[in-house]
Structures are given as C-alpha cells and as structure tokens.
C-alpha cells in the first residue's frame, strides 16, 4: 500500500532525538549515530584536502611556480593525498553509509561490537589529530607514498608525526572491518541467507576482508620508516645494505588493495541505486557477488604494477601485468551487469540515478585507462605522469565520490526523515559531472604529452591544458557546495519523506524514517530475494500476490 504524503510524519521517538545531549552523541553505541559522527569528521577532512587541491591548481596555472615555494607546493600535494586517501575516501562509504545501513540491511539491531564501533571513531579522530598536528607544525613533503630513502633519511618534514597519524587511522579501519565481518557472519536475521544479502552488504564484506588483511602491512611499513628516521637504523637504507625497493613492495602490498577498499563499497552503492531506479532486480546478482569477492582477492596480487620502472625484475613486471588484466575482468562484469539491469526496467531520473550514471560513465573511462596502465609498454611512458593522476581521479572522484553522493542522496530520507529538493539536486549532479570532466580529462593528454606528476614548475607548452584543468574547479566546487547547503537545510526543513519514498523493497525501507534506535520493533524473518519488486525473477512479469491467487 503506498502512503499518501499527508500521512507521513517524523516518528516521535527515533535515533536522532532519543538522547539530545552532546554526551549522548559522544558516548553512543548506536551505529546510526556513529555513522553521523563519521559524516561530520570526513566532511571536515574533505574540506581540508580540497583547500590543498585548490591552492595547487591555482599555482599550476602558471608554469613558473610564482605563488608558492617548491617546498610549500610539495607539502600541499602530500597533504592533499594523505588527507583525501586516509581521512576521506577510505572511511567515506564504509563508515558513513556502511555503519548506518549494514545492521538494518541484514535485519539486526546493531553491529556485533557496538562499543568497538564507537572506539573506531575515536581512534580515527586521534589519528586525524596527529595528521593535523603534522600539517600545522610545518607539513610533510614526501608525497602520500613516502618513498624511501627520501622519507626516511632526507626529508625535512614532520614525517614521523604523519606516519603515526596514519598508523592510528589504520586501526580505525581494522576495527571497522572486524566489526563488519563478524556482524555479517553472526547477526543476519532469520531467513537472511548469504545469497539474499543486498549487494551493498556483499561489497562491504569484501571490503572488510581487505581492511583486516591489508591495513596491518601498512602499519608495519610506516613503523619501519619511523624507526629508520627516528633511530637511524636502516632497513631501507642502501648505505647499510637495505633496499629501498623493499619499502615499495611493502607499501604497495597495502596500497593497491586500499584502492579496492575505496571502490568496492562504491560499486555496492551503485548496484543498489541502479536496481532501485530501474525498479527491477539487479542483473546477474550471483555474478556480481563473485566479482566483488574476486576483486578483493585478486587485488592482493597486483601491487607490482605500481613498480614497472622501479628496477624490479622484468619477469615480475610481466606477472603483475598479467594479473592486473585479470583483475579488470570482474569490474567489467559489474559495468555490463549494471547496464543490463536498465534493460526493460522502469527508469526514473532522480538525483541518485544521475550520480549512478555518472559513476558508470566515469568509472568506465577510468577503468579503461587502467587497462592502458596494465599494458607494460604503455605504462613505462605514462607512469609518474599526469596520466596516472587523471586515471586515479576518474576512479576515486568520478567513481567513489559520485557513488558516495548518490548514496547520501538516496538514503538521505532514511537518515533524516526528510527529502532534499530534487531539481536542485539534479542540477548539482550535472554541474559536478561537467566540472569533473573539465578538470581531469585534460590531464590524460598532459600525461601522454609527458608532463610528470608532482611538478611545481613545468615547460610552457603544458600551460594551456593546465589552465583548462583549473577552470573545472569552480564547477567542481559548486557541485560539492550545493549538496552541503541543501542537504543541511533539508535535514531541518525538508519535506517529510515517510518510510519509503522510493517504493523500494530493501529491509531499510520497511522501517520508519528516521529509524528508531533499535531499528526493528521485532527482528524480521526474511523470505524474499533481494530487489524483489514483486516480479518473477526469470520473466520479470509481475507475480500475483497471495490475495490475487486466493481470489482466483
């Protein structure tokens, strides 16, 4: 039964107003409140990372580096990378949308370890404190990749402080991943079998496997760099028989799976959005499940593709190239499956779908350029150039951030109980899409032309495209600023949404908006497939309901 708008109301007791003091928020065990704590934190860090980006792009409009010193510029791009990767992208979807939705989507009242969940946020903030301290004290200029021996011996920045900040932040990831895994294994509602789980849950699960297995390697690697720097003991120092390449292997062993941490949850969101706005089940559910697990597994085997020109053996290079082609296959499966989901659907074009379509477009472009990078001979030419910068921004921003925003919009009514202004949101999505392409597409060309990355000054022939790229930034900024404004406004004054404004079948839409603290008055018993729009799964013809079959 669809409810008419006049019937919608904000439930008198929901997770937002049960306990209104600051203390009740800072000591909460409720996964939904913790999600909002994370939302505020990562938005703050996103702002800081964005300011660095704006300053960099302004500097890059002139080839001679006229506004900042080289050292300052180097600190800016390091800041941008570190903050965006560890303090925005990695926590964004898992810790905001994942924390909020995972227990609800599996029919649980909360995570398996609610206090560990809260601890993970405090740990995140503690790590952020060290990172901010490092920046305020003078900054780090090693790049987010901390290559030795520059970072361990030669750099004059606050490397140890930053390394400590990232180390601590890593534990936030580990605790989150641990919590998610145990929750999915142990707290599924009766009837919620593994293959009835929403695809968002599957990708969060796959991501959590990477969280717990990859992050510790980063932790030990940073520890070793800090020891080398602090105590003068050389592990990566060739002067005492150490090997700087060992650092690169250890670092990328984490950092490549880390990029899958950033994209897998985004893919999960897209699966949810495409199904919801086509009003039909996702095409090839099983294949998408296996693709998600496959990406998580294969992602651990390809780290050497960041090191094709590093001096590693060319035979190692070949193996990593082959495996990198393999890992592209499951991502391709997902793109084709999302496209096929639209076939014979009932598609409507609200803002979340626009974000989802942006994701598919931009992730496809980014992923295709990934194939170019897996091709050894081409990678030799474009590695360490702006081609790489464009590639990962297409995936991270054009992909992950678009999915994040799409998910925020889609679940905004559930989180706040209110709707956002649809037309304004659609415009924001389009502006973001245009601004993004203007900012980053020229960088592919710059890269192939030979402009190296992390360059403060550059030959004049690259200036025109750099200016074009910077021109994309105001649109990008507007695309981010608008949702910040209207979502904030709508949370307080938006039209009341009701439990299921999208008429979607997931468990999260069967409870009030905003949900009560305990999520479900009684734990549901699950009997239906996910994305069940009441149609036969094979023919997609509408199935008759029980009443209809009894009437017959």
């Amino acid at each position, binding site marked *: 039964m669809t409810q008419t708008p006049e019937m919608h109301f904000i439930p008198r007791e929901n997770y937002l107003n049960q306990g209104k003091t600051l203390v009740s928020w800072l000591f909460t065990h409720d996964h939904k409140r913790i999600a909002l704590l994370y939302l505020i934190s990562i938005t703050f860090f996103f702002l800081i990372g964005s300011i660095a980006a704006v300053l960099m792009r302004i500097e890059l409009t002139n080839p001679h580096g006229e506004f900042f010193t*080289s050292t300052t510029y180097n600190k800016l791009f390091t800041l941008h990378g570190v903050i965006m990767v560890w303090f925005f992208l990695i926590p964004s979807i898992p810790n905001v949308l994942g924390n909020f939705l995972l227990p609800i989507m599996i029919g649980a009242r909360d995570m398996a370890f609610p206090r560990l969940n809260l601890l993970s946020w405090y740990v995140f903030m503690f790590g952020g404190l060290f990172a901010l301290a490092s920046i305020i004290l003078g900054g780090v200029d090693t790049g987010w990749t901390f290559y030795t021996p520059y970072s361990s011996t030669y750099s004059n920045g606050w490397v140890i402080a930053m390394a400590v900040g990232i180390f601590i932040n890593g534990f936030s990831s580990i605790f989150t991943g641990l919590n998610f895994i145990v929750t999915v294994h142990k707290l599924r509602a009766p009837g919620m079998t593994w293959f009835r789980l929403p695809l968002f849950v599957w990708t969060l699960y796959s991501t959590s496997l990477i969280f717990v297995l990859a992050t510790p390697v980063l932790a030990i690697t940073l520890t070793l760099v800090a020891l080398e720097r602090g105590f003068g003991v050389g592990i990566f120092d*060739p002067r005492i028989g150490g090997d700087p390449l060992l650092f690169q292997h250890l670092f990328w062993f984490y950092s490549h799976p880390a990029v899958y941490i950033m994209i897998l949850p985004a893919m999960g969101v897209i699966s949810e959005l495409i199904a919801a706005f086509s009003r039909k089940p996702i*095409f090839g559910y099983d294949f998408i499940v296996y693709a998600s697990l496959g990406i998580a597994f294969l992602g651990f085997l390809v780290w050497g593709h960041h090191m094709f020109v590093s001096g590693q053996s060319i035979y190692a290079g070949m193996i990593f190239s082959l495996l990198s082609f393999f890992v592209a296959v499951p991502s391709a499966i997902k793109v084709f499956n999302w496209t096929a989901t639209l076939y014979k659907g009932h598609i409507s074009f609200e803002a979340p779908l626009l974000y989802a379509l942006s994701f598919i477009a931009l992730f496809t472009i980014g992923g295709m350029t990934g194939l170019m990078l897996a091709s050894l001979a081409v990678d030799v030419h474009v590695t360490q150039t702006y081609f790489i910068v464009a590639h990962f921004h297409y995936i991270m921003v054009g992909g992950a951030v678009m999915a994040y925003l799409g998910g925020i919009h889609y679940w905004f009514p559930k989180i706040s109980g209110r709707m956002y202004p649809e037309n304004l949101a659609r415009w924001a999505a389009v502006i973001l899409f245009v601004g993004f392409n203007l900012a980053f597409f020229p960088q592919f060309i710059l890269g192939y032309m*030979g402009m190296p990355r992390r360059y403060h000054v550059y030959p004049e022939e690259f200036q025109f495209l750099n200016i074009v790229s910077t021109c994309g930034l105001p649109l990008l900024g507007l695309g981010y600023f608008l949702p910040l404004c209207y979502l904030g406004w709508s949370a307080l004054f938006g039209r009341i949404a009701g439990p299921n404004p999208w008429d979607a079948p997931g468990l999260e839409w069967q409870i009030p908006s905003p949900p009560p603290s305990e999520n479900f008055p009684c734990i549901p018993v699950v009997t239906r497939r996910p994305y069940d729009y009441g149609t036969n799964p094979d023919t997609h013809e509408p199935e008759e309901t029980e009443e209809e079959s009894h009437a017959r």
Partner: protein
Amino acid sequence: MNLPLLPYESSSYAASVDAIFLSLLLLCGAITLAVFVVIIFFCIRYRRGSSADRTHYPSHGEQVGIEFTWIIIPFVIFIGLFIWAGNVYYEMFSPPTDGLAIYVIGKQWMWKIEHPGGQREINQLHIPVNRNIVLTLTSQDVIHDFDVPAFRIKHDVLPGRYVRMWFKATQTGTYHLFCGQYCGDFHSRMAGSIIVMSDLDYAAWLQGSGTQSAPESLVAEGSRYFHSLGCSGCHEGSLVVHAPSLNGLYQQPVPLQSGQIVVANDDYLRDSILQPSKNVPAGYQPIMPSFQGLLSEEQIIALIAYIKSQRNDLPPNSRDQP
C-alpha cells in the same frame, strides 16, 4: 611519425608504444562509447511510464550465457593486449650489447652525465642519432627517474645500485629530460635536454666539449685511479698478494667462497670495491681493503669503466673504448 598532441616519436620503439596506446584508445573508446550509447538508449526507451515492451525477459539460462560472453571475450582480448605490450616492454628493457655506454649519476637536483671519452655534462645529454645508447645510472642520494617522454622511456635511478636503460634516437633534435620520481624540493627543476645530433655533429661536439685540450677518457681516468689508489699493486701480477686478475672479468660468472656463482656485472664490481668481503671469490681470502666512503660515484664509475675495458681479446692500444 609525429601525431598531434603526442610528443615526437623519436626513438626506435616509440612508434610501437604509440601503436599499442592508439589501439587501446580505439578499443576502449569503442567499448566506452558502446556502453554509453546503450545506457542512453535504455534510459530513454525504458523510462518510467514509457510503453516499451517489457515482457519476454531473457531466461536464467540466457542470462548466464550473456554473462559468460562478456567475461570470455574481454578476457581473451586482455590476454592479447598483455602479450603485445609485454613483448614491446621486453624489447624496451633489454639493452643491446653493442651500445654506446654512457654513465649517469642523479643527485638532488641535477643529472651528471659522463661520456666514455671523458666529456662531462650537467642536465644535458648529447648523443648521435641512429645509434644504440646504453645508459648505466645510479643515484647519489634518493630515488630519481631518468624520463625522456619523446623516447617513451623512463627508469627509476636507485642509490647503491646500477640500473641500465637503452634507446636509439631516430630523429635529430632537442627533447625534454625530466626527473620522473619525486625526489624533494626541486624535483620539478631537475630537468634538462637530450640533444640528438648527426654523426658528424656529434663527433665535432666530442672534440669541442671540455675546456682542456682533450678530455681524459673514462677508461684513462679509471686507469689513473686504479694505479694511484693501489689496486694494481695487488691485482696486476703481485708476487706477494694473491688477488684475482681482472682481465676479461666483466660479465663472466664468478664462483664465490660461499658456493654461489654470480655474474661480474656493474653491481658486482661496485660491491667488490666498496664491500670487498661481501662476495669473496672462491679460493681467495677476504683481505682486500674497503673503499667505502673514499670514492665518489664518478670515481667508481671510472674504475668500473677501466675494469670493463680489460678484455683479453683486444690488443692493448684499443682498450680505451670500453
């Protein structure tokens, strides 16, 4: 061939690299375009409320068949791409044996280049066109990267180790040399040029460069150190000290005290000078003194050039060229 927007294809393998890239561009572009077109088509045709026929959905079996089609076809294409690109990469990373050997030392924030004839350059490399050039590179401090976009080649330059790269320039002209691995404050200023000249011009440049009357070749310089630092005292026929002869040593297998057999390449020679007790050849005692901290990278390179030139098969007066 020079295409718009692409840097000049100025090395022997540049065109191969561009061919792969352009093919990928076409292939990926076609697939991307196809995905976009299909999505737009579906969005229009199957928008909510349209009268398109939504019955006769593919059966489960048909769906699985479709899935496997778009798994297997990309997979096969990927294998093909891997083989193609891998082959070109193998060629790019296999230095020929007959190349003109030039040494490069990278340091924060400049490139120091040494020609076999002793000519030295900073941030510039003059080379003859259409000849194989083999660079041996090392860094004095952090990791750098010798990056020549016009040749489509780059390679990281590591401290404590030699790496090799090669190219054959096919067009005269001046091309960018960049440092391609972030190395600190003035990373972006560690740039220079590769100047490719005709054989005649190159020969003239060799004569004309250097302020002395004739620059001392690397081999001659190395010979000078070899004698002045006392190496010849043990290694050239000493009656008192049992030290291995270095004649014909380069690139030969050397059985070590530990039972391993290693090849006497540049890294081996460097280690033997700086940490002689690390790889003691079988049948010898670890009595050679270490020169760690006593030699600059340039001196080590000169010594290695001299040792490389000690080849049995050459008459003595042709040993000036390594």
